[in-house]
């Protein structure tokens, strides 16, 4: 396992759209282990997407289980993830390893259903809510070349669009 270098905005590579994983091979297993080692090396980090470490395939890792009192699915390695459903919307504060020292408010769905594949290509469906749903959506954005900076709202607008704004 290796700790990979994290690309930082304004590196243009972060805007690249990643392509689907086709080969579920040994190389994919090795990369997933490196991605996880890189995420675990940053205290407090709850997700990391492949393009953040200069690897442009649709792979993201999310694990919010260290946060107290949150519903979660444990460690989720999401390969070729697709959002099947999203419900509600809630504003929350986000930051990103690729955008150091800046945090902002982002509106995200409150509950989602995501389908993805595991390292052996088997499909899985996850139901996520709240903080975990936010983490998944944040990471999936990276696969499409989007950063939370593309979605950040003025803190002054918070009052007018809090929970369940539809």
């Amino acid at each position, binding site marked *: 396992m290796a700790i990979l270098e994290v690309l930082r905005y304004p590196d243009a590579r972060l805007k690249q759209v990643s392509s689907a994983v086709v080969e579920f091979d040994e190389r994919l297993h090795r990369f997933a282990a490196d991605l996880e080692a890189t995420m675990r090396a940053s205290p407090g*980090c709850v997700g990391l997407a492949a393009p953040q470490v200069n690897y442009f395939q649709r792979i993201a890792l999310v694990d919010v289980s260290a946060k107290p009192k949150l519903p979660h699915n444990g460690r989720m390695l999401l390969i070729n993830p697709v959002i099947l459903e999203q419900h509600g919307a809630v504003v929350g*504060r986000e*930051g990103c390893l690729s955008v150091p020292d*800046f945090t902002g408010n982002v509106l995200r769905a409150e509950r989602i259903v995501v389908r993805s594949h595991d390292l052996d290509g088997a499909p899985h469906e996850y139901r996520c809510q709240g903080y975990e749903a936010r*983490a998944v959506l944040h990471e999936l954005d990276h696969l499409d070349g989007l950063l939370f900076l593309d979605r950040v709202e003025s803190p002054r607008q918070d009052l007018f669009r809090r929970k369940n704004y539809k």
Partner: protein
Amino acid sequence: MKRWYMLTVVGADRPGIVARLSETLYHGGCNLGEASMARLGGNFSIMLMAQTDTDIEALRLLLAPLARELNLHVHLDRIEAQLHEHVEPNLRITVSGADRAGIVAEVTGALARAGFNILDLYSDVAGTAAKPIYVMIIDGFAPQGAEALEAALAPLRKTGVDLRLTPLDTLIG
């Protein structure tokens, strides 16, 4: 040597003040840091960090013509400042109620006694002239978390002020 200054600029609001101010500073050799502008009661106000190797008098002279032309009050302070030193809040306190004098003093007094550090504060008077309502949103850091503050704020709820505490946990992904 580059030094940081805090510029405070206040005046009647009109379109273009930020552009004129920042152009003047840029052409005068300043680099801007963090800034916060707000329109308060129809007045323009901005506080901004500017870095330059000139002294405070030269900065004053640079801004004097613009201040005269746009009728702006400019206040300058030499400051010790660092960028990239943000503190992440862990609690939001939303305050609202019928407007009356003293809400801010009472709420922030209780917060200060409980060790809460305010990092960002936004407040507004809304409603109507006959029945104004007061709204305030405070983000800050509570060293002991939300529970410790609940007790400190409880007496205020009895005075008709609505208070909501929302823990903030910034997602890093």
